[in-house]
């Protein structure tokens, strides 16, 4: 019975879709001339006159705040005015996200919008049909989104030329390097300006090792992953390469040299003793906090050092070891998608559109209610109201990076007032990967990927941390075991999909 209803619904939706798609085309042509300057107002006009009341549900990872209900109410009031909708905010704890959302999806629970990301199951959910295609909807109800985001973001997040989710406008590239303890940098007068080669970094580590016996030069082996993220797109295409050719990083001499260098670092005593586990146990952060460490590998963006200085509680300074780089992973770093179980995808898209244009709505979601959770100190700068601190506030931010246009989100009083301009510059200057927009569909080789994942886990960390004597021997063992798990088949599949993508995207 249930099944019948849902197939009926699906059919109905399909019909509505086709109709609306047809309608939108003719609509658009005539509207284009007049509508372009004031898209938001036309939407509002439509909204208040002939929309039925509807409750939107927004599902995203995070912990429910004490004042969540208040913020929800306030947002609903505002949304009713604009698009005659109310909203239910539904945060799900990070730790239970996988279980809970899997069950929601498979049991067909109804919800409208869901957070997703390349590293958070986006490709998988699309291949399983959870998210609906947004191209037509966006054309009709989300016209402002492409304007705000720009071509690169939209292209980068598409799968086979179709959008299934809209990315948050935020930093669009990753910088790579370290954050360093600023006191030590000042003490030894290290120069942290510009891009540093590994040799220059080694000079610093050597100085620290020789002069500061109680301090570990580099904690954690995160540097290896940062380094490969800076040199390879998704561990498969070399950044230097001009052709779309999938490579095995373990056969790349550059990578082997790097692993040998890590071995040398380890022998020099530059890593901490727990280097294999110190990232996951949180010890790496703790050592930096307590001044027992000099450097921590980190992916970087403008102002990262200032941000971390606050959370770590001591002055830090960032140093880059490679130029910022943009891959598909960046474009799909944080997105919102519309569920197949949404009863009103059009309204969901209208809401999405507002997240990119309506500062009032977005800031409510990001920071709560003005006067209660924050006060304005200038046009786009805010601070805690009197008597409220980070510990006692009722609506700690769910994370502005998850929703809409972060560039219209308010900045805190202790932040750089021109943070967003710096971001714009950073985004514009970053080098684009030649495979930007290619997303690998894992379905054909999922069994092989699962087996290889275990092999990686066994060898990667040891090699990255230089914790083993015979680097080349270990690589050989690693490769043999990986091949046994079906690695070559994955490579071939990647190359095949990449070739196909190259054909269709050019």
């Amino acid at each position, binding site marked *: 019975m249930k*099944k019948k209803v849902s197939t009926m619904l*699906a059919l109905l939706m399909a019909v509505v879709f086709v109709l609306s798609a047809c309608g939108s085309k003719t609509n658009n042509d005539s509207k284009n001339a007049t509508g372009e300057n004031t898209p938001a107002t036309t939407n509002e006009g439509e909204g208040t006159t002939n929309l039925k009341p509807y409750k939107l549900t927004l599902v995203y990872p995070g912990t429910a705040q004490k004042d969540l209900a208040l913020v929800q109410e306030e947002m609903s009031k505002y949304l009713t005015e604009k698009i005659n909708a109310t909203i239910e905010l539904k945060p799900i704890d990070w730790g239970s996200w*996988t279980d809970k959302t*899997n069950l929601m*999806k*498979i049991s*067909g629970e109804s919800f409208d919008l869901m957070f997703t990301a390349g590293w958070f*199951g986006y490709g*998988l*959910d699309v*291949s*399983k*049909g*959870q998210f609906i295609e947004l191209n037509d909807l966006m054309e009709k109800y989300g016209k402002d989104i492409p304007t705000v985001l720009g071509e690169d973001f939209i292209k980068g997040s598409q799968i086979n030329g179709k959008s299934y989710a809209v990315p948050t406008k935020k930093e669009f590239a990753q910088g790579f390097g370290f954050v360093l303890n600023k006191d030590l940098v000042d003490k030894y007068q290290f120069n942290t300006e510009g891009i540093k080669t590994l040799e220059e970094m080694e000079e610093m580590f050597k100085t620290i090792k020789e002069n500061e016996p109680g301090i570990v030069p580099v904690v954690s082996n995160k540097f290896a992953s940062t380094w490969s993220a800076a040199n390879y797109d998704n561990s498969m295409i070399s950044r230097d390469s001009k052709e779309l050719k999938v490579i095995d990083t373990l056969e790349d001499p550059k990578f082997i040299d790097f692993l040998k260098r890590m071995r040398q670092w380890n022998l020099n005593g530059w890593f*901490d*003793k*727990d280097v*294999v*586990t*110190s990232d*996951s*146990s949180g*010890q790496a952060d703790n*050592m930096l906090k307590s001044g027992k460490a000099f450097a921590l590998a980190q992916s970087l963006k403008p102002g990262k050092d200032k941000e971390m200085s606050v959370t770590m509680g001591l002055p830090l300074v960032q140093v880059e070891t490679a130029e910022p780089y943009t891959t598909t992973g960046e474009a799909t770093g944080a997105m919102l998608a519309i569920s*197949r179980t949404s009863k009103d995808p059009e309204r969901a898209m209208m809401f999405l559109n507002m997240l990119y244009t309506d500062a009032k709505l977005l800031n409510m979601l990001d920071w709560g209610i003005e006067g209660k959770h924050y006060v304005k100190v200038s046009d786009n700068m805010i601070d805690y109201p009197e008597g409220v601190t980070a510990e006692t506030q009722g609506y700690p931010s769910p994370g502005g990076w998850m929703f809409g246009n972060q560039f219209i989100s308010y900045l805190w009083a202790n932040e750089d007032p021109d943070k967003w301009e710096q971001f714009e510059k950073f985004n514009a200057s970053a080098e684009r990967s030649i495979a930007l927009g290619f997303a690998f569909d*894992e*379905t054909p080789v*999922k*069994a*092989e*990927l*699962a*087996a290889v*994942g*275990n*092999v990686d*886990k*066994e*060898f*990667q*960390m*040891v090699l990255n941390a230089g*914790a083993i004597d015979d680097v080349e021997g270990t690589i050989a063992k690693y490769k043999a*075991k990986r091949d*046994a*798990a*079906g690695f070559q088949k994955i490579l071939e599949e990647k190359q095949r999909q990449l070739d196909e993508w190259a054909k269709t995207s050019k």
Partner: protein
Amino acid sequence: MKPLASSDAPTVSPAIVPGRMRTFRRKIKKYRALLLMMVPGLLYLILNNYIPMYGVILAFKELNYVDGIFGSPWAGLYNFKFLFNSPDAYLITRNTVLYNGAFIIVNTCLALLVALLVNEIKDKVVTRFYQSTFLLPHIISMVVVAYLVYSFLNAESGFVNRQLANWFGFDSISWYNEASYWPYVLVIVNAWKGVGYLAIIYFAAIIGIDKEYYEAATIDGASKWKQMTRITLPLIAPMIIVMTLLSISTIMRSDFGLFYQVPMNSGPLMPTTNTIDTFVYRAMIVRGDIGMSTAAGVYQSVVCFFLILGANFAVRRISKDNALF
């Protein structure tokens, strides 16, 4: 599903119903009250366990959300492939079985020792105190246990390397980097957490033994040791057999927290800490694929099923009453 026929007026002629059937019906009627007692439990099993069993087909499906569990296309045995194609297939099965074997032996011996010794203490207040402490490790979660183990073993500032190494004069060890120590570490941690629980079960069984046996034995001048080995152990043997059979039924499963969280998911330790469950979990981080994890569950169940059938058969041959079914 027929209503129980009354024996006075059989609805079917005796020629058709064989005699065995008739006695069976009569028995059912006689034990109606007992069978009715089981109804709530039976209904619960159907709801909680038997209805959801259709989910096993997920192991043979390429699931997508639009078509749902039944509508998704079949995938044959593809979901099993990642388990058996892996170079680690043998290693993880071996680790799982050997660890569980070690746990069964170590925990049973220790728990019996504890239960027997507690029984020797006559002071009630003291007994109560000891018993209270037994069960404590059982009630904390593995996540917390992982933190505790870490506080002992971490290389930089752990209790073992910082204090014990000084006291006893051995070199500090990079625990999370050396696979060879972990079989011992895991057996110890597991015993620490599980022995109290098992001991309480055995203690309850010992307490149930009729005191007259001991009185008679004391009159005959049997030593304490003889009483333990000749009276107590044989009399609680059924309980030991049941507990061991139950443990065998989970011999292919491993406590995820113990094997994943306690070793801090450290790569170099994988040769001695990777089990079927951690393998599946690590594989699932890449893709949260329900089909593949169901397939792994089916594999574990099938192996256990045959193991337990064998074990139960063996027990039945020795003592019919102590078999599970």
